[in-house]
């Protein structure tokens, strides 16, 4: 972007601050964006930019930077912040103005960065964020005195309330950035003595401003006494996760039935409204059978994400990282790997990007290599389809959903696989240097309904966009490949067997026969490489074309229950625990490691693992059948 255009869009204001002080929440309110926010450190790992027009009509560009504790970076995400502020980033000018965002409840920690940024000489303002929370905690902060002691202006903000940024907006309007700020001072790395001196200065400023360090156990401390207890803590974590998976099956039934009913109705209407034609076949057996098979699982995905969002917003997830640190450390993983791995439960791509918060390149690479083993949401339709078809809908062990239990086991299998691979990587690497987990434990708070609604809406939007674009287009292509060439006159089997897809499936079936996959599964795995849930849609299309004119759009599960054996179903589940059926993940690994070597290694080891796991599962299941 050239300088003239930058100038036209207004001066650049950077939001800088410690992790989890609410920069992204402020950014979202200021710019109307919907960037991810969560109640833990390290959510933002890249620079993000958005436009702001102030009440008086000034145009400003707002830049959200990853959280940093100092300008001397220790992790790749902190480097982004330091590089932007110090003007070391290629093709990017230094910001014209800095809003130094601080957590008003934790100024003792936050002010050291403020002092460092002030030293740069850039025009700035300090935003005392979460000032409502500080007041509720009984902390009285004399903002005017604090501003006087710091030597920079201060505004109070509440990043989770739309009106909470008014003082900042008024300040930016009144005394905000000029298009061309002064030339900032040079920066040099601080010595330990200088850092200690800064910390003493922070304490002096706080004492002068009458900000008392909060003493005594807080509400969060009292909860943590139970939640982080060495015995009760892991038990609570296991129960929480277990209940989530129970709910995924127990609560989703009604909305799933409604969606299924809707798809069947549309299928029936199309069948009667359209004359017999190729187009009718495409719409019913290609698009509707494929898309309908995937769409049914939307309620389960939303329920899973509702729980994750609630736990995330309440502040429980960093506690889970703390509880699992010992387990992670025992296999050689950095404690910081927890958040990237947790993000991978949604999708491996943000998980792999979140590894930028990991200090050691070797630990970061190990985390990237195992991230796809975490069960992403795209696997859920595959798991739910097979579990729904083969695992009886019944209660066991005094009221537990058997289907939920199996789903929980599959998630555990993914985690166990990841830990085993990490252990092997660590052994091969002769052990990496130990990095203690230093993660801020944020205060607990009630989940913000707006955040939950935005999170769920984004999930819905993403899922429907995927269904409406990638899945529809791949289903149409699969239908075409499954329909040509036409079956010869007098052919006995369904036409698809004579088609291009049928022949590809037959050839692949030879490879997959030892693990119990039939040709229909083999065909579905090919488009399923684009994204895992596409395989479900593909199975819908393939079975719709295999069936003799019967509509299967709403009833794939009973059809596969009749066509597959239990060992085949279990083998396919085992395949999906490990297989790297996602090209976008491999592309992201290439981008993050800047090399083709690691995505190739990743694809190779994961396919080998998937084949081995399916083979063992299939053979054992056959032996017990």
């Amino acid at each position: 972007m050239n300088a003239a255009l930058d100038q036209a869009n207004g001066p650049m204001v950077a939001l800088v601050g410690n992790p989890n002080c609410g920069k992204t929440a402020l950014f979202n309110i200021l710019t109307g964006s919907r960037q991810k926010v969560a109640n833990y450190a390290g959510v933002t790992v890249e620079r993000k930019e958005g436009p702001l027009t102030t009440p008086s009509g000034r145009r400003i560009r707002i830049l959200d930077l990853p959280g940093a504790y100092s300008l001397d970076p220790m992790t790749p995400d902190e480097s982004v912040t330091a590089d932007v502020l110090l003007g070391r980033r290629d093709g990017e000018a230094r910001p014209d103005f800095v809003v130094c965002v601080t957590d008003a409840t934790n100024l003792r920690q936050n002010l050291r960065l403020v002092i460092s940024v002030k030293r740069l000489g850039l025009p700035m303002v300090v935003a005392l964020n979460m000032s409502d929370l500080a007041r509720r905690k009984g902390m009285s902060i004399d903002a005017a005195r604090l501003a006087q002691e710091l030597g920079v202006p201060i505004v109070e903000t509440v990043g989770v309330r739309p009106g909470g940024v008014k003082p900042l907006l008024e300040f930016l309007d009144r005394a905000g950035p000029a298009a061309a700020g002064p030339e900032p001072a040079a920066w040099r790395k601080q010595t330990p003595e200088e850092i200690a001196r800064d910390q003493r200065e922070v304490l002096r400023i706080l004492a002068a401003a009458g900000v008392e360090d909060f003493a005594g156990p807080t509400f969060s401390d009292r909860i943590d006494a139970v939640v982080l207890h060495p015995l009760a803590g892991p038990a609570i974590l296991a129960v929480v996760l277990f209940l989530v998976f129970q709910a995924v099956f127990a609560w989703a039934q009604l909305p799933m039935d409604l969606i299924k009913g809707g798809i069947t109705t549309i299928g029936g209407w199309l069948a009667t409204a359209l004359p017999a034609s190729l187009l009718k076949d495409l719409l019913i057996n290609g698009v509707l059978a494929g898309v309908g098979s995937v769409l049914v699982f939307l309620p389960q995905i939303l329920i899973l994400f509702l729980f994750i969002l609630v736990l995330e917003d309440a502040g429980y997830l960093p506690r889970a990282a703390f509880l699992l640190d010992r387990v992670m450390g025992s296999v050689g993983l950095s404690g910081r790997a927890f958040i990237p791995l947790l993000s991978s439960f949604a999708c491996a791509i943000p998980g792999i990007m979140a590894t930028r918060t990991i200090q050691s390149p070797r630990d970061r690479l190990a985390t990237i290599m195992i991230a796809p083993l975490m069960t992403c949401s795209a696997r859920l339709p595959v798991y739910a389809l097979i579990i729904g078809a083969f695992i009886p809908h019944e209660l066991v062990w005094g009221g537990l959903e058997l289907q939920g239990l199996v789903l929980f086991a599959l998630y555990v299998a993914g985690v166990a696989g990841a830990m085993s691979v990490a252990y092997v990587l660590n052994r091969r690497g002769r052990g990496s240097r130990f990095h203690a987990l230093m993660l801020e434990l944020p205060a607990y708070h009630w989940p913000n309904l707006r955040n939950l609604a935005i999170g769920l809406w984004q999930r819905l939007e993403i899922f429907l966009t995927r269904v409406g674009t990638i899945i529809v287009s791949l289903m149409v292509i699969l239908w075409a490949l499954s329909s040509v060439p036409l079956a010869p006159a007098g052919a006995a089997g369904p036409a698809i067997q004579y088609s291009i897809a049928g022949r590809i499936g037959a050839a692949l079936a030879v490879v997959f026969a030892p693990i119990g996959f039939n040709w229909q599964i083999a065909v579905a795995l090919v488009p399923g490489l684009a994204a895992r849930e596409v395989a479900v849609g593909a199975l819908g299309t393939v079975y719709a074309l295999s069936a003799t004119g019967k509509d299967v759009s709403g009833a794939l599960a009973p059809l596969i229950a009749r066509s597959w054996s239990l060992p085949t179903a279990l083998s396919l589940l085992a395949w999906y625990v490990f297989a790297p059926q996602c090209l976008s993940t491999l592309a992201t690994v290439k981008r993050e490691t800047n090399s083709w070597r690691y995505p190739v290694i990743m694809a190779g080891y994961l396919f080998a693992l998937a084949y081995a796991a399916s083979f063992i599962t299939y053979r054992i299941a056959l032996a017990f059948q």
Partner: protein
Amino acid sequence: MSGWLDHALVFIVVAASGAYALYAFGPRALRVRVAALFGTAARPAGRCGSCDGCGPRRPPRA
């Protein structure tokens, strides 16, 4: 529906789907060219569309 219209409609739908799949999963250079054609910026490589908003929601600046 006449035979040729039926075939033409199916051909258009299949061709459009093929073009979209090529755009979505093809090389970044292709996405950039297509984006330039429509005057928008290309999606960053590796953006899956199923993430938690890790990438920019607005088109990235060139």
